[in-house]
């Protein structure tokens, strides 16, 4: 259609509009493709590893060894696969090597790189005699290449290759860690004979064991757990959902899909608003042409199609470049997320469906919005359209007779006289400010955990020593606790029930309401209360993780602690709920390390280790925040540039006239572009509560997958700093605006109006 050429030739005239919409569409499409492809890649690769290598559904520790007969009986009666996992921790300098005996049923090994090269095929591998297979990252950090020798115990073994176990994909030494220490910890895989040889070579090494289980029938899980409790009284039970070595990547898949889809949607909506706004301006400015075309016999539907092209140009172009940019971005994004776990070969799973959807989505959105806008505007009859000619500017007669300076009066009248443009500016700048602020607020909140919550979290205690089983008696320099993990129906993340003595001085327990705690009451930490949606006075039902028994208590108050999910109660109450004597304990709080035999210790948590892992977490999120900051700055510059261009176009004659009257460029800029100056801080202020709300939603979403709720904290200095960033972006865009002002010809004011 010849008419269609007009739309393409208008690109130069409306360049800012096309640049802004193209760019925003491109960013939204790139983010959507990047996030969904990364989620798909992580999901596919992980599930392939979990499926092919028979990852455990749960693991547990029993006080005694399960007999071969019972193992077979459980497998038959409860339709499951159960295998004992043996390991020993070998300390080499500052490093820990967790040596595993090769499994044959559950958590199989995958040797992905040997002297023969690397393989992407996830297949269970057999370990050769006299060889050890380690994590690739540990090898790289410690210059341990394939073929090198390593002394384990007093045995010298050869590194046969790099391998992983599906239950150690996220190679955490301890489940309290959030990020693995890849330079200081590795798992190592050997066959049965080599394992025995290493163990026998050094008497200080202890053989540890736990059981891993794969359920084939989900309905039999609870009956199995009850039978197991009756037979062997397990002291620990972790389902794979609770095991961050397995669940972390699954959680990231959910987070990626949820968060980045919403970022993309926000940008899509912003583009739709801009398209609707610009299209109505273009059509309004072309009313004479429209009237003429109507008079010449063009149907409304034909004209409608013509104006849809205006919306299609940026969306198709933006989507096209978005898809192109999405390919390398996905690769980089995958590399970034896979960096959180141990190295293994993976292939990026580009999905044609995702790309097609990401390509079509903005096109469909923009066609829809342009069709609606066009059909509304084209309803006027031809004669009326031809008569109208150039749009008559509506003037809001605000502050008439006011003693304010004309520049101020002008600013308010311009803002009120162009409500749609004002709204587009407000929405655009608020979104840009939100994108910029989001990273800052997340970082502030995380830093608050590091600087305030973590030091507070452990109260006066510096060490927390978890024991493998219950003990009685007193501990020198320590205060004892009952500490047992309970599950909550329909929730993925468990909590710990803590039973404390009335004279405990090390456990932090301050209620949010300010009321003193009564010994014998039930108090939930704010971290748990936020996650489970419980308030003071609510009934709280939970399930004993080992016995499967259900209990309900009434929560008396909420304790100020966002970092941990705990319910605190008296030792007597806890003992009753756990099924032990009030004299027993399995956890010790202390200000100095306590003297407990190492074989009795399950874990020692100290403040420094919490702090280290959280600092590592902060470091990894910096890249995401840097991306957000960059996108926000670019959106800010483009939006201001687009709207400044519009304002200048509308005020061409005024600008020209002011130049003739002797106004300098900077003075003209202050008059013509001043309405934006006024709106900028308003938009920023509006963005603050919106970003707090959005960050809170993100933190709740993140708590759903990670179980850690981080309260939103914003430092005033951050608000000032980020306002300066927004302001700088604004000043940069004003520079472009001033150049446009500069280009307005003074002779324009001498011409008769069109």
């Amino acid at each position: 259609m010849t008419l269609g050429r007009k739309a393409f030739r208008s690109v130069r005239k409306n360049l800012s509009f096309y640049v802004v919409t193209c760019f925003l569409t491109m960013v939204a499409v790139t983010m959507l493709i990047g996030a969904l492809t990364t989620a798909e890649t992580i999901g596919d690769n992980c599930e392939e590893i979990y499926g092919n290598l028979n990852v455990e559904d749960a693991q547990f520790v029993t006080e005694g060894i399960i007999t071969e007969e019972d193992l077979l009986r459980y497998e038959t009666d409860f339709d499951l696969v159960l295998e004992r996992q043996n390991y020993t921790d070998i300390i080499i300098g500052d490093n820990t090597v967790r040596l595993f005996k090769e499994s044959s049923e559950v958590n199989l090994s995958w040797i992905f790189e040997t002297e023969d090269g690397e393989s992407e095929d996830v297949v269970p591998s057999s370990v050769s005699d006299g060889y050890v297979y380690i994590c690739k990252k540990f090898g790289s950090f410690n210059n341990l290449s394939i073929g090198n020798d390593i002394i384990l115990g007093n045995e010298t073994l050869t590194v046969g290759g790099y391998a992983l176990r599906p239950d150690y994909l996220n190679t955490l030494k301890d489940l309290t860690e959030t990020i693995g220490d890849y330079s200081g910890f590795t798992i190592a895989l050997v066959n049965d004979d080599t394992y025995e040889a290493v163990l026998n070579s050094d008497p200080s090494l202890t053989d540890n064991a736990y059981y891993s289980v794969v359920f084939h029938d989900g309905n039999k899980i609870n009956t199995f757990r009850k039978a197991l409790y009756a037979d062997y009284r397990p002291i620990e039970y972790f389902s794979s959902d609770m095991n961050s070595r397995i669940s972390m990547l699954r959680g990231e898949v959910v987070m990626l899909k949820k968060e980045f889809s919403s970022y993309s949607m926000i940008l899509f909506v912003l583009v739709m608003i801009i398209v609707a706004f610009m299209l109505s301006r273009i059509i309004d400015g072309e009313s004479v042409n429209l009237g003429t075309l109507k008079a010449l016999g063009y149907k409304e539907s034909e004209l409608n199609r013509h104006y849809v092209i205006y919306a299609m140009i940026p969306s198709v172009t933006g989507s096209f470049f978005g898809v192109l940019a999405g390919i390398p971005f996905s690769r980089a994004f995958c590399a970034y997320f896979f960096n959180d776990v141990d190295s293994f070969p993976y292939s990026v799973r580009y999905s044609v469906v995702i790309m097609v959807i990401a390509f079509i989505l903005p096109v469909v959105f923009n066609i829809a919005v342009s069709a609606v806008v066009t059909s509304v505007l084209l309803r006027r009859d031809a004669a009326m359209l031809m008569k109208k000619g150039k749009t008559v500017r509506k003037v809001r007669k605000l502050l008439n007779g006011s003693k304010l300076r004309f520049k101020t009066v002008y600013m308010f009248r311009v803002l009120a006289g162009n409500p749609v443009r004002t709204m587009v500016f407000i929405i655009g700048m608020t979104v840009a400010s939100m994108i910029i602020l989001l990273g800052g607020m997340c970082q502030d909140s995380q830093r608050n955990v590091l600087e305030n919550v973590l030091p507070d979290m452990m109260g006066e205690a510096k060490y927390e020593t978890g024991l493998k089983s219950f003990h009685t008696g007193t501990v020198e320099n320590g205060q004892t606790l009952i500490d047992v993990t309970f599950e909550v129906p329909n929730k993925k993340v468990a909590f710990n029930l803590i039973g404390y003595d009335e004279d405990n001085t090390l456990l932090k327990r301050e209620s949010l309401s300010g009321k003193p705690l009564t010994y014998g009451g039930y108090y939930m930490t704010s971290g748990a209360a936020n996650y489970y949606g419980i308030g003071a006075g609510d009934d709280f039902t939970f399930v004993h993780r080992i016995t499967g028994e259900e209990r309900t208590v009434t929560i008396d108050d909420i304790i100020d602690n966002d970092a941990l999910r705990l319910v605190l109660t008296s030792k007597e109450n806890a003992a009753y709920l756990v099924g032990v004597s009030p004299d027993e304990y399995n956890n010790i709080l202390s200000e100095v390390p306590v003297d407990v035999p190492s074989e009795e210790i399950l874990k020692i948590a100290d403040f420094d280790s919490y702090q280290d892992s959280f600092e590592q977490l902060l470091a990894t999120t910096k890249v995401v925040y840097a991306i957000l900051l960059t996108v926000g700055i670019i959106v800010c510059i483009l939006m201001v540039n687009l709207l400044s261009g519009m304002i200048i176009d509308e005020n061409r004659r005024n600008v020209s006239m002011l130049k003739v009257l002797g106004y300098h460029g900077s003075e003209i800029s202050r008059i013509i572009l001043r309405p934006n100056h006024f709106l900028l801080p308003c938009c920023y202020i509006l963005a603050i509560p919106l970003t707090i709300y959005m960050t809170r939603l993100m933190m709740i979403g993140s708590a759903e997958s990670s179980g850690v709720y981080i309260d939103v904290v914003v430092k005033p200095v951050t608000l000032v700093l980020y306002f300066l960033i927004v302001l700088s972006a604004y000043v940069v865009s004003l520079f472009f605006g001033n150049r446009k002002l500069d280009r307005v010809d003074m002779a324009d004011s001498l011409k008769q109006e069109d």
Partner: protein
Amino acid sequence: MNGRNETIIMEHISIKNICKKYGQGESSVKALDNVSLEIAKGEVCVILGPSGSGKSTLLNMIGGLDRVDSGTITVDGMEITSLNKKQLTDYRREKLGMVFQAYNLIPELNVIENVRVVKDITKEPLDEKELLHVLGLEKHMMHFPSELSGGQQQRCSIARALVKNPALLLCDELTGALDSASARDVLRVLQTINEQYHTTIIMITHDERIAGMADVLVRIMDGRIVECISKEKLKVEELGI
């Protein structure tokens, strides 16, 4: 000097041999071709010519809105053709008033606010209310341009130009968009201003009727001054001597 009598004592504007060409090569157009003209302080100079004759180009050059290819323009002893961009802005700000055919009032501002647009950048402005009174707009000070007739808008535009008490007032097709009654009305106002404030006025027009109020009448055709008549000669012609 194209036939003008050398009787004026105080030379205000001196234009010497200015040339201006637009475009390049074969498609270039000579907008002004060796134009020279002198106007004394307080004179009303009317420049007549058909469309495309170069009169608007000449006005642009005097107003410092465009640059000459060659020649010089001196206003009040200041050679404006050698000024840089900032100095030209200052020249317009301090010495020049300009009235446009299209009025160019800011639609978002009422009459008095439009006048204040210039008053705000003037060192010693006139009283805007008094000026509006002189121009017969005292009852319309709070009206917006869209609420005024063409003549009223043009008077507002004149008030805006005069509030700085400029040494030189440039008028571009002042009455081009007005009906006869409004045009007469506006010209009368301009005459009063000229008499009251001794403002030098240069008007470009193709309306022959305006010639009557000129001290100097310049006819321009194809970028050249074809006729330049002083008031004395105009009077003689009027009397038929």
